């Protein structure tokens, strides 16, 4: 005998390993044993192979590699004795899995063993096959297994049936072969065979439609009879569990009946009685009974049941829900989710109980209850439910807060019918769990606020109050900063106070305090700090007296080590110092994002939006106006669109300066005096381009500033693109950006016409003119027609006007676009004669005029 071969028995090895105090010790012992086993294997030592494999299995369970023993398993399986085969098969199942190629070598041994005379060896082979066979092995050995399905020995039969299940799962094509043997299994008396047979039929139904029909036709009766027998059977000691005879068989048969009755009205009707009997007769004080009831309710929900049966099922679920046992409640919540599609009214009745479950101490139950609550929310109960959930949010566990917050936010968004409620709830959620709120959620909040002008004052005040209490919630801070920046003057001047609000005075310095504290707080992140800087800039324009203090604050960040903050601080400082005149228009009220477009775009690509917005923040573009406000950015529309859109409403006479725009594009904002726009009107160019409706400064047009008509795609980030586009336009040295200021073409006591111009950079001869007609009298005009005549060297193309009815007193206007091609561009200026015809109270009027004040260069 080999002196190194292991003489230790299995028991001694286990004792030795357990006695090890440290991992290193254990490793040493294991290594020694493995070495002994390896040498024993290479010696082909027959006596100890049994013991060796057992030791290997133990070592494998500890987690050490044991592949050198795999061939030994095969040898053991191939040997003749029962004990060797037994341990060999066990080793096979433990040490190998179906993906190993070594497994194929066993196929032959398996085949022989499947035909063995000793039924226990056949059993071993079937067990091994059923647990780990691969698809190829399944195909090879399927005929053997089929044959074994028909033996007389119940032990072999049941093992063969379960083995067939595995075969069908691996190779669904073979299902038809097993169809008829399976049905014959259902006629057996032996419970083990019945259980295996019913399970085989269930799997057949899952895999093959034909088998399903076949079973439905032939076996339903038999199944019902089986169920009746065990339901009504007297006490059977062998199969009794908690007073019920063979609950496992009950459950399997119920499951198969569910599969057969699903979608089939006849079968459902046929099994109605037995289901009712099982549902009402089964006792539910022990787990076994409850398991059967659970399966029964599932079956009732899964077939075309009568309403009486459904009521029975819902009642059982109601009982489960109020059971003290956590398992039962969990199961009930699960079932209720499926029951909603069947009878949602009944489930609504249990709403309070379900809400209680959301607050349960058990994490699994909480999760299920929350999902169920989410399915139950509808328009009528959204408000109370949200209130309850938010109340719970305050006291919930940290790991649950994330889920809870996202569910609450989805409910609020889906079911909010009025903006005020939406804003209120969101502010509450942000104060309680702002750190768990996803970015797109508070972006949506900002869009909603900007779309609700009458609630803006209220929002900014609520946010201010909330901020005082919970300033550690990052999202809350970010939304508050943005709103204070945008609507600061509403906050301070108590604009738009609603009746429900308590009076509150906030001074300008309070507002600036808020921003300053955010900026300097140690735990604020870069995004928030950047937002603070831009909000401060906005405030310095909205609160002129605080401008000095704002400047100081901004200046402190000029030396910041973070590039983003440094850049912003320097640029904003520059704007405050040297560009007073354009400052206010730069930080004008943000153009409103169209909510419906925003929502649909966001639904399509929320992730993409967020990433583009973030990447925008890091864009080192030359444009200095990075007004990041967290609003999700829709696709950037080209420059031309912007200019087209803008020039319709706000025709303001301005002085020209194209150089001023160029200045903005230069990094560093060198102080060029040619930006000499001494008056505020110079800024109007930019205003035009952005078509901002709400003027903080006076506007010569009689607009009342209430119409922030949402212009699709005019998010502020457009400014960046706008300036980028202009930069590329002005690429060759001499060419100025082709922007021409608008003019008042004609003005009488009753009518005013303004023209604004766009040109394409590559077509200097072509100009598009947008004419706006305004009625200065107190009577409305109808049948409004505009005609124009031009000299011979100019071509004119008129587009139709948008209407021919002009309301009185400038309450509305007509716009019309026409295209002019000046064939002698650069040599002769434009001139035009116009004729306007309209009706006032059914009288015809005519006005004529000549326009000579076209700007040069057209």
């Amino acid at each position: 005998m080999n002196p190194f071969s292991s003489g230790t028995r299995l028991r001694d090895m286990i004792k030795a390993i357990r006695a090890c105090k440290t991992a290193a010790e254990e490793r040493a012992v294991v290594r020694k044993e493995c070495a002994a086993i390896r040498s024993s294997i290479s010696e082909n030592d027959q006596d100890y192979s049994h013991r060796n494999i057992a030791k290997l299995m133990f070592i494998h369970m500890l987690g050490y590699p044991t592949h050198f023993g795999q061939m030994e398993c095969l040898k053991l399986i191939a040997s003749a004795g029962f004990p060797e085969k037994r341990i060999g098969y066990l080793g096979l199942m433990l040490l190998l899995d179906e993906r190993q190629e070594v497994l194929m070598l066993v196929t032959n041994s398996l085949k022989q063993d499947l035909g063995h005379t000793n039924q226990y060896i056949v059993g071993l082979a079937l067990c091994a096959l059923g647990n780990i066979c691969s698809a190829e092995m399944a195909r090879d050995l399927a005929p053997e297994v089929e044959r074994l399905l028909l033996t007389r020995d119940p032990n072999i039969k049941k093992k063969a049936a379960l083995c067939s299940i595995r075969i069908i799962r691996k190779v669904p094509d073979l299902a038809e072969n097993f169809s008829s043997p399976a049905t014959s299994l259902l006629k057996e008396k032996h419970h083990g065979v019945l259980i295996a047979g019913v399970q085989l039929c269930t799997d057949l139904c899952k895999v093959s439609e034909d088998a399903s029909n076949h079973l439905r036709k032939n076996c339903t009766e038999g199944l019902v009879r089986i169920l009746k027998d065990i339901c009504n059977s007297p006490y059977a000691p062998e199969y009794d569990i908690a007073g019920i005879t063979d609950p496992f068989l009950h459950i399997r048969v119920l499951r198969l009946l569910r599969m057969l009755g699903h979608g089939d009205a006849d079968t459902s009707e046929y099994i109605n009685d037995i289901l009712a009997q099982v549902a009402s007769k089964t006792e539910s004080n022990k787990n076994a009974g409850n398991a059967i009831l659970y399966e029964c309710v599932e079956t009732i929900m899964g077939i075309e049941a009568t309403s009486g049966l459904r009521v029975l099922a819902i009642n059982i679920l109601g009982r489960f829900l109020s059971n003290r046992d956590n398992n039962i409640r969990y199961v009930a919540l699960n079932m209720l989710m499926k029951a909603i599609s069947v009878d949602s009214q009944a489930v609504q009745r249990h709403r309070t109980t379900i809400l209680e479950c959301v607050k349960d101490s058990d994490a699994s139950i909480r999760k299920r209850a929350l999902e169920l609550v989410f399915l139950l929310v509808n328009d009528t109960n959204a408000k109370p439910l949200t209130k309850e959930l938010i109340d719970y949010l305050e006291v919930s566990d940290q790991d649950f807060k994330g889920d809870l917050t996202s569910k609450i936010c989805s409910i609020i968004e889906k079911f909010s019918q009025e903006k005020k409620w939406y804003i209120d709830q969101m502010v509450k959620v942000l104060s309680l769990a702002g750190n768990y709120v996803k970015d797109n959620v508070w972006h949506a909040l900002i869009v909603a606020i900007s779309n609700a002008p009458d609630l803006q004052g209220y929002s900014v005040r609520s946010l201010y109050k909330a901020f005082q209490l919970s300033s550690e919630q990052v999202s809350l801070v970010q939304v508050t900063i943005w709103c204070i920046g945008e609507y600061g003057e509403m906050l301070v001047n108590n604009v738009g106070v609603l009746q429900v609000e308590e009076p509150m005075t906030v001074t300008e310095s309070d507002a600036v305090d808020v921003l300053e504290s955010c900026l300097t707080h140690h735990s604020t992140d870069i995004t928030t700090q950047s937002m603070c800087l831009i909000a401060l800039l906005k405030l310095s324009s909205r609160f002129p007296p605080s401008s000095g203090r704002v400047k100081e604050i901004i200046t402190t960040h000029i030396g910041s080590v973070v590039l983003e903050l440094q850049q912003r601080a320097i640029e904003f400082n520059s704007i405050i110092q040297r560009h007073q005149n354009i400052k206010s228009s730069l930080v004008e009220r943000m153009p409103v994002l169209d909510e419906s477009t925003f929502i649909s775009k966001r639904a399509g690509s929320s992730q993409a939006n967020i990433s583009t917005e973030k990447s925008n923040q890091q864009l080192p573009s030359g444009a200095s106006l990075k007004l990041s406000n967290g609003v999700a950015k829709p696709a950037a529309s080209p420059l031309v669109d912007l200019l087209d859109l803008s020039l319709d409403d706000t025709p303001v006479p301005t002085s020209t300066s194209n150089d001023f725009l160029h200045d903005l594009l230069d990094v560093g904002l060198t102080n060029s005096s040619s930006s000499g726009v001494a008056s505020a009107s110079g800024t109007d160019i930019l205003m035009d381009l952005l078509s901002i409706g709400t003027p903080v400064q006076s506007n010569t047009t009689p607009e009342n500033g209430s119409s922030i008509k949402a212009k699709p795609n005019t998010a502020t980030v457009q400014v960046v693109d706008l300036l980028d586009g202009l930069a590329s336009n002005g690429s060759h040295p001499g060419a100025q950006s082709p922007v021409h200021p608008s003019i008042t073409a004609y003005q009488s006591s009753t009518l005013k016409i303004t023209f604004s111009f766009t040109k394409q950079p590559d077509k200097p001869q072509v100009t598009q003119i947008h004419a706006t007609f305004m009625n200065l009298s107190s009577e409305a005009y109808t049948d409004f027609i505009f005609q124009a005549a031009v000299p011979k060297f100019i071509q004119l193309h008129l587009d139709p006007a948008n209407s021919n009815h002009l309301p009185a007193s400038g309450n509305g206007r007509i716009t019309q676009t026409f295209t002019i091609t000046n064939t002698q561009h650069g040599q002769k200026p434009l001139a035009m004669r116009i004729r306007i015809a309209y009706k006032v109270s059914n009288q015809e009027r005519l006005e004529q005029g000549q326009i000579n004040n076209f700007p040069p260069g057209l």
Partner: protein
Amino acid sequence: MIHFVILISRQGKVRLTKWYSPYQQKERATAIRELSSLILTRGPKLCNFVEWKGYKAVYRRYASLYFCMCVDQDDNELEILEIIHHFVEILDRYFGSVCELDLIFNFHKAYYILDEILIAGELQESSKKIVARLIAAQDTMVETAKAEAGSVSNMIAQTM
């Protein structure tokens, strides 16, 4: 179907694992680790079901051992609890008041018993008596074979 069965001690040591679905070695180790941490940290009064990676893990604690079975979402959890109890009762009958040490030193016998209860992740036999009978019969065969082998080698040794 039952995807796998794990028995772990209170300290997280693995006493028995049986896999009915294809899991690689690494995946097995990960699964055991994750489930152990989920289950061992749960309090005593909580429900016996944990959701893990789209599956449900049904577990029950018996003395110092946790018996855990991982099943599909649409399986009947209460029935799995019954199967676990079925297994434990059979072990109890076989070993006579089974304790963890029995399962450590006779792990191969525990596996044999499990193989008589579950195949391919499905229940095989609902009668404890029949399972006990089958195991007893196979044990007898092993005893007889060993006795014969013993006598043969005795004979050979004597002739040598």
